[in-house]
């Protein structure tokens, strides 16, 4: 679910060789008071410093750009992108200040920027466009009525599972069924409600511009269980029966347990196909949930036994990628490792897929 302060994460003033200006999140209403947009004093303070120093700093070829960002503690900061392949990167970083007129300066090592015609960047595959059915997964989607309090919400239709011989789309509880109060839309998520592709956030919050692909089967995985999952029964002909995932293809019907440093990949609505590695196991994590889209606090859940994945700069997983299936990073028919559902700008968290399938009494659709 979208929290108002998440707007800043999509509101990055990036000044680089190929990009400039603000990138704003697709919202259909003006941000509420307190939102960190370009009218906010803290953001304006960073922009003022950014305008002052960027041209000078970018005379160094090692500096690729600057941006307004948030640090791990949620404070506004000036992000400086430094070419990770540059020989003099270390010296350049040492010469940059940690703070400039009260604005924290964050260094982020990165590849050289390049133009990306469509989200995801992998071969131009869009993870947000409305597909011609049968759709492939790893795409934008969500509960058809996920619109409340001036915002719409969604996530990723991640993968295909079989429950009692019936095909279901697997995603997260908080993507499909976390609207549990009448609240801002006078509605709660119910079994039978349509699940759409793409999600509302990618069709200007207008469900008529999306297509129904499945029907919600509420599982109430939270707050009671240790997994954040939900499923929707596939509408005949609307989802590729092989369970193919965009830019990954078909997967194995087998699963594999996570291991430290294991290479993994995922295909999701926001960041497309991305790769990373497992940095931790058996995590105990507290995660706060809302009671509807941009709603109030519902509960805080403490998960145990979770998988931790490196997520520097949210490059592996970002808002909207929830519901993505994490698989081993092999070229052909990878085995599922986890169901991605939470994270921060440095860390991503996945439920072990074995726990998810056990909870649902399901199996992955894939190659035996």
């Amino acid at each position: 679910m979208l929290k108002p302060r998440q707007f800043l994460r999509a509101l990055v003033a990036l000044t680089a060789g190929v990009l400039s200006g603000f990138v704003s999140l697709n919202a259909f209403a003006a941000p509420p008071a307190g939102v960190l947009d370009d009218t906010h004093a803290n953001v304006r303070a960073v922009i003022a410093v950014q305008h002052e120093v960027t041209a000078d700093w970018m005379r160094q070829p090692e500096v690729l750009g600057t941006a307004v960002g948030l640090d791990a503690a949620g404070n506004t900061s000036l992000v400086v992108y430094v070419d990770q392949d540059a020989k003099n990167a270390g010296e350049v970083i040492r010469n940059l200040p940690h703070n400039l007129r009260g604005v924290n300066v964050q260094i982020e090592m990165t590849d050289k920027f390049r133009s990306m015609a469509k989200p995801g960047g992998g071969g131009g595959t869009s993870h947000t466009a409305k597909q011609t059915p049968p759709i492939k997964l790893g795409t934008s989607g969500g509960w058809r009525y996920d619109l409340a309090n001036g915002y719409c919400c969604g996530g990723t239709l991640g993968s295909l599972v079989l429950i009692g011989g019936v095909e279901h789309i697997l995603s997260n509880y908080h993507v499909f069924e976390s609207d549990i109060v009448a609240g801002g839309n006078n509605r709660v998520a119910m079994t039978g409600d349509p699940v759409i592709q793409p999600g509302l956030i990618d069709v200007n919050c207008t469900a008529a511009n999306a297509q129904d692909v499945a029907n919600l089967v509420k599982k109430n995985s939270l707050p009671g269980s240790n997994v954040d999952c939900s499923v929707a029964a596939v509408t005949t002909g609307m989802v590729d029966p092989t369970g193919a995932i965009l830019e990954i293809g078909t997967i194995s019907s087998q699963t594999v347990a996570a291991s430290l440093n294991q290479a993994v990949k995922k295909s999701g609505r926001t960041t497309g196909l991305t790769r990373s590695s497992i940095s931790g196991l058996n995590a105990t994590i507290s995660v706060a949930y809302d009671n509807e889209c941009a709603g109030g606090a519902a509960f805080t859940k403490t998960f145990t036994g979770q998988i931790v994945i490196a997520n520097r700069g949210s490059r592996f997983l970002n808002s909207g990628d929830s519901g993505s299936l994490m698989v081993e990073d092999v070229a052909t028919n990878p085995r599922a490792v986890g169901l991605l559902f939470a994270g921060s700008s440095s860390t991503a968290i996945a439920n072990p897929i074995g726990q998810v399938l056990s909870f649902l009494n399901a199996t992955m659709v894939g190659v035996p």
Partner: protein
Amino acid sequence: MFLSSQAMAQNSSPSPRRDINDVLRAHDKELLAIPGVVGIYVGELDDGKTPCLKVMLLRKSDETERAIPKTLEGYPVVTEVTGEIRPLGN
């Protein structure tokens, strides 16, 4: 039950006696009860081979760091600032 960092430190021993996952399970609740701690997991030190417990912090805080033991039952305990862990719907 919440144990103070002093109490947890007293539980430390020079060498690991049991599986690190059991150690995590034995201490995760009291570590998570420390204000500013958002998670705990089993990871590796920067050498890429020594198992350790990693404590995830909401933000950098000397007070929070002081409340966290340096070792638990012989395993190193290290902190990392992750910020808030939140659901990643949109």
